[in-house]
Each structure stands twice: as structure tokens, then as C-alpha cells.
């Protein structure tokens, strides 16, 4: 009896969850598709976003992502390698860096928005611009990316390091040809997590990259990200729901496409490296 009630409960839970999630997903896909056309991707918005398309907004979104990744990826990978391969485990500096990273990984994105506004926009004088928005995003994704890569590198078996040493490899060569390729899954995971967070972000961008929906002329122009566009259409523009759903569909598709791209890019890059080595 108890067994039957228990499995019933579990089934009901699963069913509820599937139903609710499918409801959201189908709404986004159906309503988005109803308002979507290929022209939507290539037109500028008109009438506060009710009509026209999202071309300048897509361009701003991609610029923001590009800036964030260009800054965060090399820095993050460097810090991860240093933490796992070079820093001694009882070094004060390494420990405090680790703790700070953990704290910052959990800080709400709106707080990054506050920081970005105070530091990049006002203190460094970048104003409301793609550059200050992108740099704020970089700060936001850095802790998560470092931590996932570091964990990935640490889980590579020490036998590989000993083997590399025995072959007379320098540590740099070992890292480049053996440890990084071996930690590939973690690096991909970190990359996907970072892309997802940066593309989906709204709160951190409101006060750093701004609302302007024109095509950005330079990196010091203000630009509106796709997520901010959805927020603005839903909250401040009556009758903008159709365009908002279409933008939401584009945003979700964009994230999925970028993730697939990141996965295959990292895969092919490391495959070549292993063949050369």
C-alpha cells in the first residue's frame, strides 16, 4: 500500500513538472513563431519595438558577449592553470583568491550592475556603453569560469603529470599538450555556463550598457541587449508582447546555437592538439 502511494506521488510530481515546463516552452515557441519572420532579424525596431525587427539589438548582444569572452576567457584560464598547477596548496594568496572567487560566484547579478555602474561607467568614465557592459559581464562570468576549469584540471590524474615529467617535458609543454586537452569537458562546461549567463543577463546591463536601441557605431556607444529588449517590451511598451515573445524565441535559439558552437570549437581545437602531440 505504502509502496503504491509513494510511486503515485512520485509520478504526480514528475507529471506536474513536465506539464508546467512544457507549458512555458510551448508558449514561448508558439507565440514567438507567430510574430517571427526572417525580416525580423534584419530590420531596425520601429514604434518603440512594437514593429520592425531586432537587428541593432542582436549586434549589441553579440558585441557584449564578444567583449566579455575576450576578457574573461584568457584571464580565467590563466588563473585556473596557476591555481591548480603552480600555486602551492598552502599559499595564502592562492587560498584567499579561491575564497574570493567562491563569494563572487554567488553574488547576485544586479550587484554586478551596481559595481559596473560605479566603476566602469563613472569612475573610469566609460559612460553607458557596450564596453562598460561587456566588462561588467566579464567580471560576472570570471569566477564561475575559473572555478569550473580549475576543478577540471585538478581532476586530471597525477599519473599524467608524472608521465610528462618522466618524458622530460617542461611543465608548460605538459599543460599545453596534455593537461588542457585532458580537462576539455570541464572547459567546455565552463564556457557554456559563461555564455549562457552572459547572453541571458539583464540586471547587470541596465545601468552599464543602457537602453538605446540604435545600431551601435562604436564600442563606446550605448547598446541594448536582447534580454533588456524583452524586459523593456514586456514592462514599458503596451502591445509589445508579440515582439517580446519573438525576441525571447530568438534569444533561446541563440543560446542553444552558441553552446553547440562552443562545444564543437573546443572539441576540434583540442583534437588537433592531441594529434600534433
Amino acid at each position, binding site marked *: 500500500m505504502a509502496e503504491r502511494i509513494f510511486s503515485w506521488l*512520485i509520478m504526480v510530481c*514528475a507529471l506536474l513538472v513536465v506539464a508546467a515546463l512544457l507549458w512555458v516552452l510551448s*508558449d514561448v515557441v508558439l507565440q514567438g513563431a507567430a510574430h517571427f519572420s526572417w525580416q525580423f532579424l534584419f530590420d531596425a525596431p520601429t514604434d518603440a519595438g512594437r514593429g520592425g525587427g531586432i537587428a541593432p539589438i542582436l549586434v549589441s548582444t553579440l558585441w557584449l558577449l564578444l567583449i566579455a569572452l575576450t576578457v574573461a576567457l584568457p584571464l580565467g584560464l*590563466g588563473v585556473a592553470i596557476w591555481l591548480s598547477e603552480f600555486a602551492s596548496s598552502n599559499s595564502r594568496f*592562492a587560498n584567499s583568491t579561491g575564497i574570493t572567487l567562491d563569494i563572487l560566484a554567488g553574488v547576485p547579478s*544586479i550587484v554586478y550592475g551596481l559595481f559596473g555602474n560605479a566603476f566602469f561607467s563613472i569612475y573610469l568614465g566609460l559612460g553607458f556603453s557596450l564596453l562598460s557592459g561587456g566588462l561588467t559581464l566579464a567580471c560576472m562570468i570570471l569566477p564561475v569560469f575559473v572555478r569550473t576549469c580549475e576543478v577540471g584540471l585538478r581532476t586530471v590524474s597525477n599519473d599524467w603529470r608524472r608521465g610528462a615529467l618522466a618524458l622530460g617535458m617542461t611543465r608548460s609543454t605538459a599543460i599545453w599538450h596534455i593537461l588542457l586537452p585532458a580537462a576539455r569537458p570541464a572547459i567546455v562546461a565552463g564556457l557554456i555556463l559563461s555564455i549562457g549567463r552572459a547572453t541571458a543577463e539583464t540586471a547587470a546591463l541596465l545601468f552599464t550598457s543602457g537602453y538605446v536601441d540604435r545600431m551601435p557605431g562604436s564600442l563606446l556607444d550605448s547598446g541594448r541587449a536582447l534580454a533588456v529588449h524583452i524586459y523593456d517590451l514586456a514592462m514599458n511598451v503596451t502591445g509589445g508582447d508579440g515582439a517580446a515573445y519573438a525576441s525571447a524565441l530568438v534569444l*533561446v535559439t541563440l543560446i542553444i546555437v552558441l553552446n553547440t558552437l562552443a562545444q564543437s570549437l573546443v572539441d576540434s581545437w583540442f583534437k588537433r592538439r592531441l594529434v600534433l602531440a
Partner: protein
Amino acid sequence: MFNNSINNQADRRLNFLLLIVASATGLLLAIIILFLLNESWPFFANRWRDGTWLQLFYGQSWYPLESQFGMAPMILSSLAVTVGAVVLALPLGLGSAIYLQFYASPRWAQSFRLLLNVLAGIPSVVFGLWGLTRLVPLITSWQPPGASLLAAILVLTLMILPTIALTSASALASVPRELLAGSMALGLRRNSQILHIFLPAARSGISSGVLLATARALGETLAVLMVAGNVVQNPSGLFEPVRVLTANIALEMAYAMGDHRASLFASGLLLTMLVWLLSWFAHRVVRAHKQALQYG
């Protein structure tokens, strides 16, 4: 163990380079915290002597233009929304994880997992949009005004459900197989196996996933802002509109000046501290569990 073996130029150069990169990053992280402190400092400095800075935590009235900075209603609303969402999402997520792990056929499990993964990647603003255009009208037709504590709780629940279900499922999957064999040999029923063997063994993984989701719910800004109604008042009923701390920052940052702006930074610090406490707690849970496994 390999730290004392640098004996060539290339490695020394790389070590030096990475040390610079790491120091720069450390500096950046320090700057973030210092800037938050620095920007909220005027607020505390002006109110330190007469003790009114504590009003931030227990004051009931939020009239920043008349220098009344009471955030208690918003702090309470933030907590109510977060607790509500976790209380709803925990049983549902855990139930789905158990279904995924023990009841579903492999093909079902695969598509369920795919659905959860897709939804875990959906931006929060999309959940907000859905809540605003679907959920709020639904609640309005039942109990106006619609934009309310309940709407915020439901949207957040949907948002954190995939995370809780996926982390719990992977925690359950990493329970050693010997425990399954042992419990079967004892002739335990399926439900006793799950309730008394698997859930306790996966406890630390599940609770760290839940704490992660809690931090996410607490820090979520726009999804909540879009559906919660944003009236500054104590959360007295499920159908009352409320304003949470994060939404307050997003709404007022655009025009805040002077002490008002500083008080928003102070609330940002407060949020950071809450999240910090949560992650410290998560650390403790995981470590205590590891020790129990070692010595138990």
C-alpha cells in the same frame, strides 16, 4: 607535489606570467568589494553617530526622498519569495529526480532530462515575460490585482525547478551501487530503499543543489520585478503585491542620488552578505557529510 620542480626558463616565464594574471584577477575581485563598500559608505557615515543606520534593517518606511530608509518590508518580501519558491520547488524537484532515477524508462528519462536541460538554460527574463503575460492575468481573474507575492513565487519556482531536479538526480546517481545491492539483499521495498538508503546517502549533493537554487532565487531581479507588483509593503498575503530588494535596486538606481544611491549600494552589500552566508552554510554541510562518511 610538483611545486618545487621548476628548473627551466620556459616554466619560470610561464609561472611569472600566470602569477601576474592571477594577481590582476585578485586585484579585480578586491576592487569589486572595495567599490561596493566605498559607494555605500556615505550612507553609513552620515548615520553612524546617531545609530539611525540600523533603520535600514528594521525601519518600516521607505521614503528615500525624505531620508527615510527602512528596508524591512523589502527584506521580508525577498525572504518570503525565496522561501516560498524553495518550499514549492524542493518536493517537486526531488520527486522528479527520483522519477528520473528509479521509475522512468531509459527513453523517457532521456527526454525528461533534455527538457530539464533546455529549461535550465532559459534566461530568467523569459520566465518573467511568461509570468507577466500568462500567469498574472490568470491570477487576476481569480484574485485581483494579480501581480503579487504568489505570482513571484510561482515564476521563481519554475525557474529553479530544473536546477534542483538535475542536481538531485546527479546526486542520486552517484550513490554507490553496493548500497543498492545491499538494500535489495535485505529485501527492502522500493520506497524504503529510496527514502531510507538513497536520499540520506545523497543528502549532501541534494542540499548543495538546493542552496545554489536558493541563492539564485534570492538574487533574481527582473523575473520577480516583472510579476510582483512592486509595492513597498510587508508581505501580508499571497495576493498582495510586494517589492523585493533586488527589484528595488533595479527600479530606483536610474534616478537615485546622494544618500539614496548609497543606500541602494548598501542593500547590494546586504544581498551579497546573505548569499555569502548561504554558500558558507553549503560548505559546512558538504564538509560535515564528508567527515561523517570518513569516520562513520
